């Protein structure tokens, strides 16, 4: 076990975990940040996507020891009031069905749009195709990313 002072969502959060614990489980079990989801545990589905120093990263295979000094943003910290342009677009298009994968989708989209503010449709598809939505809301996700891009 080791002690960590993690920089998450603009705060420093103290926690104790064994160094190989994936960030996902530190967020969920230790810190009560359950918006980041478990889907596969092997970086295949994207449900656990968070931002590490601004980069969309799969937290289910990322040991907490690797992010001890990193700046971490989770869905809970993407915006203060849930009004990030991507979150607003997701609501406007009414994307979710079950909703389980959507935090990961939003985190991927937000990091992507920060780098590429005016993406083409093909670029959106390429950026978002690592995130699985079992309900099949892909059309609306695509539309929501386009809407968020148009508002920036």
């Amino acid at each position, binding site marked *: 076990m080791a002690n960590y002072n993690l920089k998450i969502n603009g705060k420093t959060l103290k926690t104790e*975990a*064994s160094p*190989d*614990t*994936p960030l996902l*489980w530190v967020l*969920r*079990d*230790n810190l*009560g*940040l*359950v*918006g*980041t*989801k*478990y*889907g*596969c*545990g*092997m970086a*295949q*589905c994207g*449900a656990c996507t968070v931002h590490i120093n601004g980069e969309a990263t799969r937290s289910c295979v990322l040991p907490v020891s690797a992010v001890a000094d990193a700046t971490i943003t*989770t*869905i*809970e910290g*993407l915006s203060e009031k*849930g009004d990030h342009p991507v*979150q607003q677009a*997701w*609501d406007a298009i*009414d994307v*979710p*069905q*079950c*909703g*389980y*994968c*959507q*935090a990961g989708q*939003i985190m991927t989209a937000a990091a992507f749009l920060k780098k590429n503010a005016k993406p083409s449709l093909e670029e959106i*598809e*390429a950026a*978002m*195709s*690592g*995130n*699985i*939505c*079992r*309900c*099949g*809301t*892909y*059309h*609306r*996700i*695509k539309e929501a990313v386009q809407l968020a891009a148009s508002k920036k």
Partner: protein
Amino acid sequence: MTKNNSRRDFLKSTALSAGGLILGFNWFGQEASAANIVNKIASEAGNNTFNAFLSIQTDGIVTIFSPNPEIGQGIKTAFPIIVAEELDVDWNNVKVVQAPLDTKKFERQVAGGSGSIPHSWQRLRKAGATARQMLVEAAAKRWNVSASECSTEKGFVIHTTSGKKLGYGELATDAAKLTPPADVKLKDKKDFKLIGSTVKGVDNHGVLTGKPLFGLDFYREGMKFAMIQRPPAFGMKLKSFDASAAKASASGIEVVSFKDKVAIVGKSTWEVKKARDLVKIEWEKAANLESSDDHNRIFKELLDGKAEVRRKDGDVETAFKDAAKIVEAEYQCPFLPHNPMEPMNFFAHVREDGVELVGPTQTPQNAQNQTAKLLNIPSEKVTVELTKMGGGFGRRLGTDYVLEAAELSSIIKAPVKVMWTREDDMSGGSYRPAVRYRFRAALDKQGNMIGYTLRGAGINAGNSTRQDNFPAGAVPNLLIDSAEHKSPITTGPWRAPITNFLAFAEQSFLDEVATAAGKDAVQFRLELLEKAKTSPAGEIKYNIDRMKAVIELAAEKSGWNKKRKGVSLGFSVYFSHASYVAQVAEVVMKKGKPVLQKIYAAVDCGVVVNQSGARNQVMGGIVDGIGHAMYGNLTFKDGSPDQKNFNAFRLIKMNEIPAIEVSFVDNGIDPTGLGEPALPPTGGSVANAIFKATGKRLRNQPFIEEDQKLFESVS
């Protein structure tokens, strides 16, 4: 759908201590006898009481309790829309709350069979309308006028002649004291304002900001975490285990065993997962360990052997003897896991005085009853709180994962959340059964289908046919039978049970028959429906006109009769779960490969309750249908699935979807469900379009494995 509403609804109201109106209602109505697996499960529980519930606060806020489990089908938004429409309240003043299992207040708290909306439509309307009428009466009394002079609008009662108005909140306390009317007038459908509009999901904000909504998000002070090692193959049982290394791996690790399972309990998910890997377990063979090769042999035996006759019309033997042409084909579909994004999990706390269950279940009442039975206590001692579910697709109709949590809690005498990893989930069974179909059709000289046979062969599939579905009734000589192999590999309902593969096989085969008869695919189906109408063979259990209407709408929207250069169209139509869906798939060739560029869907689910939710369900169902037809495959080696996570099991992704255009038939018929009906026709429309484009007839799912060369390098 026929419903027994003969016994009168029972309504009662009580005043809230805080001032306000609570309206509860019970129905003693008999459950509909829909022939689907879900309702069978529901009825097995032995209790089908239903009740909806709404309260109005003095500040005008209306709370609508939504009793049915939310798995992504949008019921938590759709149900309250119906209540709010008849109540005539501003949607912005409605607060929706998920109700827990309550068998006294509610009936059929089930998510499955696309049955919630048809079951509850009239009940929800009456709930809203009854409250509305009581509010009108309260206002009329206060103004000393006749209730007939009053109308309602957006949460206000208005005296039409004087223009006086009072908010529902101001009237709620008085209204609650009135005797609920025995009969209420429901709105004319043409006056619907909220129903049929576009309403966003009531949980959107929570979902988009990462609030704890799902089963896996449930944490409780003092709760233990657990994972369970189940037999690694179907047909294996536990021989022995050594937990010494696991117990030494972290503080507080406990290892217990029950029912051929080894449970690892600890203080965090990761510690438990690591400890589980350290338990040394020996398994032994208890039954045949089946492989996919065994299934190939078994299927052949089933297709050639004896079968149970499901429907027989006319004289099939003579029809085939007299045929000018005979068409024969075999189709196959593999086992599939459900793969909801949230894997199975449940929280259980077995105490001396009762049991608390919290988690994602499509059948809370079954969870309650079966837990009570397992622990030998009365059902009333078991409470079930419903969390939002990260998908279900039928997997959460089972209660195995709930009972495991309850049993484990009773053994360790502590509150515990049992979590399945993805590997546990994908190798844990309850799969869509694997099936094969053999079709034969006899054509006369004019290309009329005079004979039709279908043999369904399934592994733990029960009756793998739907013998009364189209084209039954349209063919004078018809024989449908089925055969089944009982396997240790467990199966269960998977979104649109049976029809999710039967529709693909049947609609593709009908395309083959139309081609052999030299007929247009749409005309061929319309001719068959005409025959079903003018000279029906046997009983007809689908609505001919409704099926015809979706066929014609899909043909019109897709420009079926207009030739477009380089564009190949494939047709299918299917009736399932009381709704009708026709599809046209549009394929173009790019660099010599077929590319699915669009699907047109024509849907008849009667009244559309929520445009946004309905479209989302249809599009999602089609994406699901394409994905599994193209890529989904679960194969077995010695009783163990070869695919255990998303690195080996391919789910469809964003860059693989076609455009989808959805059109609804506007016929004002009472609504039916939409969680399933859009999926079944999908495999057929896609396969038929690919045949048109390439001449390759796809008869085996997944398509990508039947002909890799055909699809290679095509996105």
